[in-house]
């Protein structure tokens, strides 16, 4: 088991390195850097000025070197600028170059500086992630039990009316992306048009003080889209299990229907949805970005949009590494959980 987990973690680290390198490369393409220079300096900067700005700040080093420095495995640059000033990557906030550390990358906990928020990227990500964590917690709480119950109810009696109506509901919810359901929910429950103004159409207030009124709509919006998908998976898995020979064995052993579902079918039927739930995270992240933008909830997804649309390179890199890490961790959990749930796979 240990070697299996180690191997998985190895693959995960490799994936993370590849992904961050890609992000790093894309954000450090010359047009992006040029734009950065112009936003930092002024928009009428000459090409020469742009080059010297970039050169002075270490942006013109070879890509692998920059990546190594950002990661913290190569020593941070110390460059004598064209303006005569010495600049070092690790000397921030007026620190003397001599005092600065040699390495200052992600590995040393240095996430860089956000040009939009004028703040340390690491601390921005931490606070925003906390807010999104709160959102996700409630989303999972609504989505997972809801999806599993719908799926199991639909799947245990294939072709019945319950099955057909629940399946239609799940199809409808998978067909409704967050930006559609969000708009509909806000229109119906957030405005007075239909006489059902029960909730707030924005969740800004929920950042400090979340309550049912201001937090339910965003949670529901994210949960619904994922819910249909998981419910359909559960249903498929459940119907397959219910037609399995061993369910017939149980039935012909005289086991009552409720017991067949609970004792014989459920565990086998939940193996597949479990992995799906875990692999849903990349999609949930999408939902988070959309919903936080739509409801103006300034969490992690909102930060991503701000960083990306304002060319805030270091913040965007930080956001990317966190989301990649979240996705990979859930994949790891999914793999390990699958092994635990499925007794057919045992470690030799």
């Amino acid at each position: 088991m240990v070697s299996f987990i180690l191997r998985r973690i190895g693959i995960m680290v490799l994936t993370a390195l590849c992904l961050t390198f890609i992000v790093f490369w894309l954000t450090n393409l010359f047009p992006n850097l040029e734009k950065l220079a112009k936003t930092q300096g002024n928009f009428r900067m000459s090409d020469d000025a742009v080059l010297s700005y970039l050169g002075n700040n270490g942006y013109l080093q070879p890509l692998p070197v920059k990546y190594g420095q950002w990661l913290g495995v190569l020593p941070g640059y110390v460059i004598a600028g064209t303006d005569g000033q010495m600049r070092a990557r690790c000397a921030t906030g007026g620190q003397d170059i001599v005092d600065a550390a040699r390495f200052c990358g992600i590995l040393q906990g240095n996430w860089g500086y956000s040009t939009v928020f004028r703040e340390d990227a690491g601390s921005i990500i931490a606070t925003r992630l906390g807010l999104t964590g709160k959102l996700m917690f409630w989303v999972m709480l609504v989505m997972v039990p809801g999806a599993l119950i719908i799926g199991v109810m639909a799947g245990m009696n294939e072709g019945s009316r319950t099955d057909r109506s629940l399946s239609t509901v799940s199809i409808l919810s998978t067909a409704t992306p967050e930006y559609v359901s969000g708009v509909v929910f806000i229109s119906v429950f957030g405005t007075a048009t239909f006489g059902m103004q029960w909730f707030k159409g924005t969740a800004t207030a929920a950042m400090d003080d979340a309550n049912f009124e201001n937090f339910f709509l965003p949670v529901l919006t994210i949960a619904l889209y994922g819910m249909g998908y998981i419910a359909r998976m559960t249903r498929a898995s459940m119907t397959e299990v219910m037609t399995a020979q061993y369910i017939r064995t149980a039935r012909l052993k005289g086991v009552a229907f409720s017991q067949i579902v609970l004792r014989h079918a459920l565990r086998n039927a939940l193996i597949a949805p479990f992995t799906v739930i875990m692999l849903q995270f990349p999609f949930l992240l999408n939902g988070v970005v959309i919903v936080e933008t739509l409801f103006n909830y300034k969490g992690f997804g909102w930060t991503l949009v701000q960083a990306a649309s304002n060319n805030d390179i270091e913040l965007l890199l930080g956001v990317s590494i966190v989301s990649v890490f979240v996705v990979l961790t859930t994949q790891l959990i999914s793999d390990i959980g699958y092994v635990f749930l499925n007794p057919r796979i045992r470690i030799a």
Partner: protein
Amino acid sequence: MANLTTAEPILEIDRLSISFFTRLREIPAVMDFSATIMPGEALGLVGESGCGKSTVALGVMQDLGANGRIVGGSIKFKGEEMNTMSPARLREIRGSKIAMIYQEPMASLNPAMKIGKQLMEVPLIHDKVSEKEAYARALEVVTDVKLPDPKRILNSYPHQLSGGQQQRIVIAMALMSKPSLLILDEPTTALDVTVEAAVVQLVKDLGHKYGTSMLFISHNLGLVLETCDRICVMYSGEAVERGSIGDVFDDMQHPYTQALFRSIPLPGADKNDRPLVAIPGNFPLPHERPKGCNFGPRCDYFQPGRCDQEMIPMVRVAGDDRHQTRCLRNREIDWNAPVTAAATKVKHAPGQVVLKMENLKKYYEVAANALFGGDRKVVKANETLSFEAREGETLAIVGESGCGKSTFAKLLMGLETATDGQILLDNISIGDVPIEKRSTKNVADIQMVFQNPFDTLNPSMSVGRQIIRALEIFGIGTNDTERRARMLELLDLVKLPRAFADRMPRQLSGGQKQRVGIARAFAGDARIVVADEPVSALDVSVQAAVTDLLMDIQREHNTTLLFISHDLSIVRYLADRVMVMYLGHVVELGTTDQVFSPPYHPYTEALLSAVPIADTRVTKKHIVLEGEIPSAMNPPPGCPFQTRCGWKSQVPGGLCDTQVPPVRLLAPGHQIKCHLDDATLAAMEPVIQIAAE
């Protein structure tokens, strides 16, 4: 069984009809079926696939699914009508009074539940006993079904057991509450012959011990003979004949029963004086059944205007015990008339050696565990294989799963290359030439017929197109017209109508697909054809036809046929020489007569004893092998067969445990891999004896 006549029947089925309802039509699966099972009696239900025998069993259990419905008749269990039983009452009976065992043991056990829990559930539900008591009972039954280390077994998951062990668990589960009726639906079909023999023996013993009545469903007449007291033969949804085993086997009164017996190879005679007679035509689809007698269109005794009028009733056969037949002409037909043999076919004597194996070895390296990697292990799939095959000869390769016969086929075809040794085709070595490097001629020379008819043809390509493709590849014909003509000739060769060229495989029956497979194999005038269990997945009546076809083509083309099979009856019927394999080793090789008469290799002896024979005149020596076939990944040291061999004690010095036996020549052309001394071998008795009439 003395008071059979006075006791009340356990199960009484009266004029039962079951239909399945689809959106388009009602499909009658069982019609007018009656049967009675007395206490302690075992009834065998025999028929080909699709005849409705499993539906009867599910009907008894009242578990026909959403589309199935009982549309007529009654099922009485100990006098109680089951068709109108409440669900609660049904649950009480299921599992406690009536238990059922199915074909696929692995699928019948819940993969995520420990064996012990699954067993304990039965008394917990029906007898409301304590957990402890339930555990004790489970332990007792597992001991009863002769599983080693019962406590460990109770604590393991189904996938940790072998197929044979799983089937024993399923049997144990069925016997947990000592039911009065046990329904067995092809309980041993998925198992190897030697394992099957052991399981059948177990069922028989336990049936007697617990006094259980049995409804035994099988397509294998031999098995029914060994296990049952009475038999009921079904054809296309109807019972056509029923009676005691003795009456039906020796004094059959229905043309279908007779045809069935004539189409299976029996050890009493060989291909020359008792040729197989295939049943002409095809099994009718449920919605295409003819008027009158269902068997009419395929029957030799068919009388137009009489047999095709109205439904034929069951009639009693005078003089026999509860012997009935569904034939209008049963009194007119001379049932003992000898089989009219088809024109005897002259067979060429085997010619030149075309194929020669020299010390062929194939080792695989596999990871011990697919998911987690781990140590790599060497699987010795083939161990020093040496033999030769001549032109026009049929060489049978016999063995159970894991014996290495499929690996050998792959080596010969060039899909794998040999680890060591040589394959010589016309004295040219091809053993290490993969198929991409072989010449078109070489490839066309060695072709294969596959086992599973439903898998052998590409489902999305028409029959004609698949044969034409083979012709294109083998470079036969210069243009499309020529190839099409040749394809039609090939269809003629395998006796299929030319119209089949434009059909899709799903429109063909299993036997027809297998014929197309044979046509495809002979597209490039193959000189060597490897037939990998070509008929084992087919129904009995079709088997004979396909076997005959294969042999006819072989005679015509003087082909060398390598016939891989586990069915010794058919091997004896058609092979010239037989090679018996076990765990990658050739344990015995000789002419058919040499292999089928003593002295035997102990494994051959056990195999012969395990094969059920549908002939009441035959008496067999009973040899039940202990344990399971070892995994090829983890073979035993010394002789591969030593873990299950009944003769091991006859070899002094524990030689079997330590040394692989050398190949010994017993007679010219008869070799055997065994440590037994000559005297012991010479003293062996024949396994099968046919009583003189």
